[in-house]
């Protein structure tokens, strides 16, 4: 953001000599003080200049000042051989103010009817960032990054540094960086160049539970190591990678660690260099991956869908039973089943079991009964055969006497319609007969 221009101050305008375009009167001394907002400079463009010409513009003149410095003194016109005419070149003020002084002497030659001048001015944004470094030894406007804005500029710093209160210079500050995006880029201060000595930086990558972080160091890796009889060691400079519940790992040397899978959603990186030696630092890309759940396995007499090569955090699976079987969870039948892969890498529910369905006891038959022809008791695809208590009852008509336990848990005959058999009494057929042998 940049401050809005002061509403009192004009961003553009026009100035002209008195009575312009009529000839200016003699014996004049007039001054215009032009001011535009801070952060802008003034560009003055003459549209016409016709002032009595004289050597060094001795008699009549228009003088342009920036503060007390003369930027130009003009007279004559564009066709005169004498005088000093600005031509088509605009005048640019170094700052946000400009002073114009017009003067005429008491003798105004009658043969010349000079009309004076007319000029337009406008505020031009100053690109402070591209301005040359001042020669007073005060240094650049911004010690690291300069951002030009309308009417002003802003200073910024590279990662690992922060802007001082003077808003111009940067100081090393690389602690407390928390990265919670699913992927990102980290590098040591000043990378690939070596930073100031004696520095400790901390970076924390913390993502949502259910995700794990992998670090992929670039090849350009340089953290000074010390040669010891036991081999190179990270004595004075190191990058320590700490993953929760694991031993910290110190990295140094010139060989990039490459890819490190942390299997954690929280990684702490601590970069330390002491006041001696030189390390150019490191750079890495980090990425996150969903936690993997174990393969759910299979269900006897059922199936688990979808079948994936791996099951990750937030993946759902569903279980269904084959026809004739029902889903059972903790001894209770459930209509449907799904489970989700949790952030801890475990399924939130164990797989159910598929139990064979049971049609219940077949309907009793008055004056009859039934026998199981196949299957186990009342389970799916069991077949019962109804019979009547003969010889006193017989099945009515050609009713189907075989009933099968179907998937809808109903006993059905071979037809879809459920028709219970009926036992009708047998009439007129006694079990004993009158036999008369005497003739």
């Amino acid at each position, binding site marked *: 953001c940049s401050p809005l221009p002061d509403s009192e101050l004009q961003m553009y305008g026009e100035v002209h000599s008195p009575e312009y375009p009529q000839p200016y009167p003699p014996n004049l001394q007039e001054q215009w003080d032009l001011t535009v907002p801070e952060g802008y400079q003034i560009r003055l463009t003459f549209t016409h200049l016709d002032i009595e010409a004289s050597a060094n513009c001795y008699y009549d003149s228009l003088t342009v000042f920036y503060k007390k410095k003369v930027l130009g003194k003009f007279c004559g016109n564009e066709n005169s051989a004498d005088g000093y005419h600005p031509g088509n070149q605009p005048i640019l003020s170094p700052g946000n103010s400009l002073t114009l002084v017009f003067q005429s002497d008491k003798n105004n030659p009658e043969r010349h009817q000079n009309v004076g001048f007319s000029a337009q001015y406008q505020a031009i944004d100053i690109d402070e960032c591209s301005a040359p470094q001042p020669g007073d030894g005060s240094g650049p406007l911004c010690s690291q990054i300069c951002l030009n804005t309308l009417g002003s500029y802003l200073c910024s710093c590279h990662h690992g540094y922060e802007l001082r209160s003077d808003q111009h210079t940067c100081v090393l500050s690389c602690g407390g960086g928390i990265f919670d995006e699913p992927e990102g880029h980290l590098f040591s201060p000043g990378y690939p160049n070596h930073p100031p000595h004696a520095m400790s930086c901390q970076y924390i990558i913390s993502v949502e539970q259910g995700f794990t972080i992998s670090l992929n160091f670039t090849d350009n890796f340089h953290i000074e190591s010390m040669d010891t009889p036991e081999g190179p060691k990270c004595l004075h400079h190191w990058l320590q990678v700490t993953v929760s519940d694991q031993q910290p790992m110190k990295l140094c040397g010139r060989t990039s660690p490459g890819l490190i899978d942390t299997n954690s959603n929280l990684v702490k990186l601590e970069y330390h260099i002491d006041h001696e030696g030189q390390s150019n630092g490191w750079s890495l890309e980090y990425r996150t991956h969903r936690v993997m759940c174990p393969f759910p396995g299979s269900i006897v007499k059922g199936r688990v869908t979808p079948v994936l090569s791996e099951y990750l955090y937030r993946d759902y699976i569903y279980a269904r039973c084959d026809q004739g079987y029902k889903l059972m969870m903790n001894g209770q039948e459930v209509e449907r089943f799904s489970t989700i892969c949790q952030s801890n890498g475990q399924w939130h529910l164990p797989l159910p079991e598929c139990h064979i369905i049971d049609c219940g006891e077949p309907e009793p038959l008055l*004056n009859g009964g039934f026998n199981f022809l196949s299957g186990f008791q009342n389970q799916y695809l069991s077949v019962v055969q109804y019979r009547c208590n003969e010889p*006193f*009852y017989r099945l009515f008509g050609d009713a189907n006497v075989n009933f099968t336990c179907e998937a809808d848990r109903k006993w059905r005959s071979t037809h879809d319609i459920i028709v219970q058999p009926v036992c009708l*009494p*047998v*009439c*007129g*057929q*006694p*079990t*004993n*007969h*009158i036999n*008369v042998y005497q003739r």
Partner: protein
Amino acid sequence: IIGGRDAPENTIPWQVLLSVDGARGGGMVIAERWIMTAAHNVVNKGQTVSHVILRIFMGHNDVDTMKQSPLNATSVHVHPEYNNPNSLNYNNDIALIKLQDTITFNSSVMPLCLPAEGATYDTNVMGLVSGFGIADDGSKRFLTNKLKYVPLPVVDQETCRNSITSVKRTSGSIPDLTNNMFCAGIPEGGKDSCQGDSGSPFTLTENGRHWAAGIVSWGVECGRRGTYGVYTRVANYLDWIKKTMQEN
């Protein structure tokens, strides 16, 4: 039953013994809750008797044994056209008794078939009549507690009508024979149904199956030569029987 024999166990499992106000009658099981009998068994002075005073027995051939387990009726349905105020009109002598409880059939209790549509009563075809009514031992008659039966042939309708006309000439007023009746018996007498058998079945057999051809209704004396027993022709009442059972 005159001239008959004791029925062996389970040979006439549809036989029912009725006791109405102390009078003995017969009936036959025709369905799990229905008994068929003669209307005159359950009508007294023109009024259908209450089912409360009706006692029903079945399942044995011995009255003393049967008396241990009477069945209850819930309703009595007399044929609407039965009208016999002076005991001289036995036309439509048929009634149905509905039992309070369903019977489970077994070897001692079994229903008798109803006539098939268009069943015929061919002359001289042998039938069987049974009952707990008056019996004889050849010389005297007595009340028996044993179920008895006697095989009798169906009598030609005209022959029967002639025998009744002949009796009328000597005995005066006796009931008329109608087309809702048929006769069974032998001309020489000595074999017949008798008092106490009313309502019992006269069965014919077809393809080894007994069917209810007649209901013991009336007759002139019992076993008298030249007379026959008269039975309600059940085949004429199929529609009424089915209708009554369905509506009740």
